[in-house]
């Protein structure tokens, strides 16, 4: 990367000459020793570009020639390019594993690098279009390309017959290209290109069925809210450049690979705090955290595969990834991390409470995503980067599965999304049901499903990290309680119990009319299971929801059986100098860790039991108790804490009002133009009057001339005296 900078960092680290405990995240064995930041091992490759360019090629082909290719052609191009990209990414990750072997990486980070072309070089600012694959990027790469491929495959069934079929796949491929730029960007500018690119694709795909203005509006809301985040991201980037003179996370992390509190003099702590806070504003936009989460629930206006791919599995986790990428900055920026953990925990709880009462199946899942992203940020705020990335990965599996499952249901129910018209679908769509159940168990944190491992590590870090605390833990635990509740509520309302069905004449306007038309060809009989293109991805993701957690078995569970924490070990080179140590009183308290694990399982169990009481026991009356006894609370949750209304009346309306009535109507049209027109009409009148003055009376002329000369003389003398 930048060897010079790496050397400086090493020199700094060496001169600090202090020992630091590192790599202690999540109860992982802490090793003590003198810190010498080892420079990354870099190997050049030429395949990274192919990985990102394949989807771009697909987007171009489907975008320009989609109509001519026909459905099969579009499928082949759309899914084929992504499949190749996914295969290639496996090869690259295997290469990377080779690189990690003994004799190669001397304990430092390692990665594959490709410089495509110089992008922006101005003065000391040098940003190339370059790609970088290290263990962290590798995790994201595999998730993005493989989950991405499954969702492309699923879309073949879901989007069947849509008039914008080719356009859909073009956008989806373009999204994948942007997402890969984001993941593989060697510097923050390439990352930002992907960052805004995925935002654009999200905008296009949310508003995919643009004939409905509400969809277009939701897309715009997403883009604009993200732009608010990007405002912070851009300024944060500039701060980093001003301090480090580079935008390469590798170089920045390397320069910061020193113990907390021993930063070099050239890097004042406040600049890191400011940069971290600004970057976190960006993360709040992209990853839907308070106060910028409001776009994500509306984003459900897009087709369901989009919700699964973009608004659950990949794009929305970009904020988490970015924080992980810049772990060195957040490691030192302790205050910023407190902000991150508080925002994360608050978002986790707030969104989960809203999810409790929503009836639109996708809305529940959307709030669930917001909430789960909050969980991830709790891990990031605690400085347990690997834990956050672990949950990012398991979440990608089970949330994609849940969204695709909901899409399968929505298709079977002819685009009805209100769960009150569902019920008893288990009988009609067994595959969808079972995979959905697996994913639900995973997100609820039931052993041994994927979410159990990742969520429990977050809970553990929330209380055991030096940056965590009991209150944070309590809030996150409560959010976990809500999670199990709203997820099992979906199961009861959708798959279990009696099938209620859509009453005749019930109008629904979800999705495009054209898409509906096609689906209306199905007889309005019993709901049917979806075709294989949709169920196969469901099954794969369902299985991953079950086994995905074993990649990150915590030491306290696996250690006794010699079962390694694969993910932590894999990510160790990336985070080794920056992982925040656990509170020393907690770090080796295994009893406590077991106890908390049991507690969270108990909480989830209680929550599931409650849903059984309310829906399973057939006690309809109980269900309404909540709404009857405390209608204000129900209304508050139902109306999503009135946050949209608050923004509307406090921010948007005043801004539009001031712009129109004050800036335009008064400043522009009255004050400035008034002045301009006033001067003009004054000149006109003066000209009329002066014209009359030229009446040929020589005496008048002489008087005026003399007066003028006197004034002129005074001015000249005055100027002269003034100097």
């Amino acid at each position, binding site marked *: 990367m930048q060897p010079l900078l790496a050397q400086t960092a090493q020199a700094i680290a060496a001169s600090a000459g202090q020992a630091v405990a590192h790599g202690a995240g999540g109860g992982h064995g802490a090793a003590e020793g003198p810190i010498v930041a080892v420079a990354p091992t870099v190997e050049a490759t030429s395949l990274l570009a192919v990985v990102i360019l394949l989807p771009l090629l697909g987007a171009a082909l489907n975008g320009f020639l989609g109509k001519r290719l026909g459905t099969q052609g579009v499928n082949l191009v759309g899914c084929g390019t992504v499949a190749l990209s996914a295969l290639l990414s496996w090869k690259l990750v295997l290469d990377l594993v080779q690189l990690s072997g003994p004799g190669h990486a001397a304990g430092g980070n390692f990665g594959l690098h490709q410089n495509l*072309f*110089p*992008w*922006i*070089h*101005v*003065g*000391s*600012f040098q940003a190339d*279009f370059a790609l970088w694959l290290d263990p962290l990027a590798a995790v994201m790469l595999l998730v993005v390309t493989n989950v991405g491929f499954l969702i492309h495959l699923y879309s073949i069934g879901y989007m069947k017959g849509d008039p914008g079929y080719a356009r859909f796949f073009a956008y989806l491929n373009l999204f994948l290209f942007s997402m890969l730029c984001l993941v593989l960007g060697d510097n923050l*500018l390439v990352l*930002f*290109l992907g*960052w*805004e*690119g995925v935002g*654009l694709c999200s*905008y296009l795909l949310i*508003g995919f069925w*643009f*004939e*409905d*203005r509400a*969809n*277009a*509006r939701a*897309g*715009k809301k997403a*883009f*604009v809210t993200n*732009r*608010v985040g*990007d*405002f912070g991201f*851009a*300024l944060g980037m*500039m*701060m980093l*450049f*001003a301090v480090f003179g580079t935008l390469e996370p590798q170089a920045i992390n390397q320069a910061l690979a020193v113990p907390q509190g021993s930063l070099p003099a050239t890097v004042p702590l406040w600049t890191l705090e400011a940069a971290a806070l600004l970057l976190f504003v960006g993360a709040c936009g992209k990853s839907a955290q308070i106060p910028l989460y409001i776009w994500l629930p509306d984003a459900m206006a897009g087709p369901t595969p989009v919700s699964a791919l973009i608004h659950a599995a990949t794009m929305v986790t970009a904020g988490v990834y970015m924080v992980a990428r810049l772990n060195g900055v957040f490691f030192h920026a302790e205050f910023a991390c407190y902000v991150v953990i508080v925002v994360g925990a608050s978002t986790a709880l707030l969104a989960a409470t809203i999810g409790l009462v929503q009836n639109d199946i996708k809305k529940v899942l959307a709030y669930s995503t917001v909430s789960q992203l909050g969980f991830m940020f709790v891990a990031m705020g605690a400085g347990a980067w690997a834990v956050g990335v672990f949950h990012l990965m398991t979440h990608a599996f089970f949330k994609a599965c849940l969204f695709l499952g909901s899409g399968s249901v929505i298709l079977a129910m002819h685009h009805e999304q209100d769960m009150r018209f569902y019920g008893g679908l288990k009988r009609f769509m067994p595959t969808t049901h079972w995979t959905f159940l697996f994913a639900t168990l995973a997100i609820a944190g039931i052993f041994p499903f994927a979410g159990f491992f990742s969520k429990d590590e977050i809970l553990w870090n929330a209380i055991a990290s030096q940056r965590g605390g009991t209150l944070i833990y309590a809030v996150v635990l409560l959010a976990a309680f809500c999670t199990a509740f709203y997820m099992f509520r979906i199961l009861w309302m959708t798959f279990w119990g009696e099938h209620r069905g859509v009453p005749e004449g019930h109008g629904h306007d979800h999705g495009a009319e054209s898409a509906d038309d096609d689906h209306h060809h199905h007889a309005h009989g019993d709901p049917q299971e979806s075709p294989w293109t949709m169920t196969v991805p469901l099954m794969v993701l369902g299985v991953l929801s079950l086994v995905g957690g074993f990649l990150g078995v915590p030491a306290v569970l696996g250690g006794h059986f010699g079962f390694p924490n694969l993910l932590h070990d894999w990510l160790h080179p990336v985070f080794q100098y920056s992982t925040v140590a656990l509170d020393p009183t907690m770090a080796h308290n295994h009893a406590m860790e077991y106890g908390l694990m049991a507690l969270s399982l108990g909480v989830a169990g209680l929550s599931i039991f409650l849903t059984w009481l309310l829906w399973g026991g057939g006690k309809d009356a109980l269900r309404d108790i909540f709404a009857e006894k405390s209608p204000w609370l129900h209304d508050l949750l139902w109306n999503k804490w009135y946050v949209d209304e608050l923004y509307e009346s406090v921010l948007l309306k005043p*801004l*539009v009002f*001031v*712009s*129109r009535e004050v*800036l*335009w109507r008064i*400043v*522009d049209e009255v004050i*400035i*133009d008034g002045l*301009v027109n006033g001067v*003009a009409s004054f000149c006109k009148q003066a000209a009329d009057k002066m014209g009359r003055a030229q009446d040929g009376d020589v005496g008048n002329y002489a008087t005026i001339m003399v007066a003028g000369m006197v004034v002129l003389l005074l001015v*000249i003398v005055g*100027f*002269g005296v*003034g*100097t």
Partner: protein
Amino acid sequence: MDSLPLLTIVTFLPLVGGLLLFAVPKGAEGAVRWVALATAVLGFVVSLPLLGYDGVAAGMQFAENYAWIPTWGLTWHLGIDGISVWLVMLTTFLGPIVILGAWDSVSRRHTEFFFHLLALQTAMLGAFVAQNLAVFYVFWELMLIPMFFLIGIWGGKERLYATLKFVLYTVFGSMLMLVAIFYLYWLHHEQAVAGLLGPAAALSPWSLEFTDLYRVQMGADVQAWLFLAFALAFAVKVPMFPLHTWLPDAHVQAPTAGSVVLAGVLLKMGTYGFLRLGMPLFPAAVAEWAWVILVLAVVGIVYGALVAMIQPDMKKLVAYSSVSHMGYIMLGIFVLNPQGVEGGILQMLNHGISTGALFLLVGVLYDRTHTRRIWDFGGLAKVMPIYTTVFIVVALSSAGLPGTNGFVGEFLTLLGAFQWGHEAFAQTGSFWSSYGYVVVAATGVVLGAVYLLWMIERVFFGPILQSRWLGLKDLSAREGLVFAPLLLMIFWMGLYPKPFIDKMEPTVEAWIEQIRAGEKKAASLPQGFGSPANPSGELHSRLAASGDAQSEGSEGGGD
């Protein structure tokens, strides 16, 4: 000198072609536009060798210097550096596009219309290549005339008010500048005669050469007054808040071609004026008063965006967005670091391309529907998919999406402003007079997305509310030809801006150096140096001789 006078040819070729239009026999209106197009294409082709500008060597190249009225210091001196080469290329590049864009939309007096367009091009090119203030001023004023007619004859309903407002605003600025020019002319003479400017200048004391005038010595206070006069003229053209209200009117009333040239090139004349004259002539004034310009630039960014947001008319919306975008350029060039200045220059090109394209797009829709009211539309994406795609791409480039040209310029100007703020903060410790500028300016990035996407949503998405739009035709082949080069430039400059940056960088670095040096030099001169009462510092040298001079006096006198 003995080589081909390329710049003269590039400059006058459009005018010659314009005059040829009148030779086209009556009744052959169709031929007029072909001749005009051929002229503009030829103009572009002829300007291509200018890309051979050697970026590494920097400095003025392709120079031509012919004596005109030597005793008065008037010379026909042309040349381009790494900055003006791109503005010349922008002008010749947009030439054919504008003419092709106006192909069918001129309803009367074809010959004159195209003549004015071509004459305007000559005037703009002349101003960009001039190296003598007299030449510059003549072309500067010449631009006004064709524009006056373009709006006044082929404009909308209130074209007379708009065109008068445009001319009066501009003339008001130019008059002050003219006075300042005369003053500089006289001052150069005084100082040359007094021997302050070296032996060569003493031989020909009357000069309006840029390079001679840069050497005129003035105290900071004298510079401030002259800077004010120049800055007003340029600020009107940019236009900077609060001198911008002519722009929306002019744009709304102007025919599409007029708007494109106005936004694409004419506004750049203001920022170019600052780069070429306002700043290097009066560096001390820049050092002292840059904060005023920066404040106005930042206010313009936010103000223009906010007012653009609530415009009911598409063209007016784009016009106000120009106010916002030009604010970025001013911000960039006044922070005086490579990122800011080069970002500002790139943004000049980007704005010419993207905003020019936006005006063309609005024109395409207006030609078909005879309305520009945003609420009249809705759902056009259904009937005009290609047009919609082009519109969205151009709008996103205007909003600075990475991968498009707008991002490179916007990001670099903001980065430059941030660097500047970072350094200022280290000195002053005050947030608002350091980072404050870039923080406020960056909100324009958010607002840019708001006004453009809101317009797109209302025009292109949702159901088609009026049945008369059902039969709207998508882009024709000719229109496709208009937009293809613009789209190419949007992505080229967004993904590989290196060739553009490489050619301008040495020039910009030398330019910054020149201003910094001039600033230091002026700081060594006492107040009032160069004033009417003390043009050549005699007062100062007398004081120095008598030993009363201040400590800074010793180095102030000579060159």
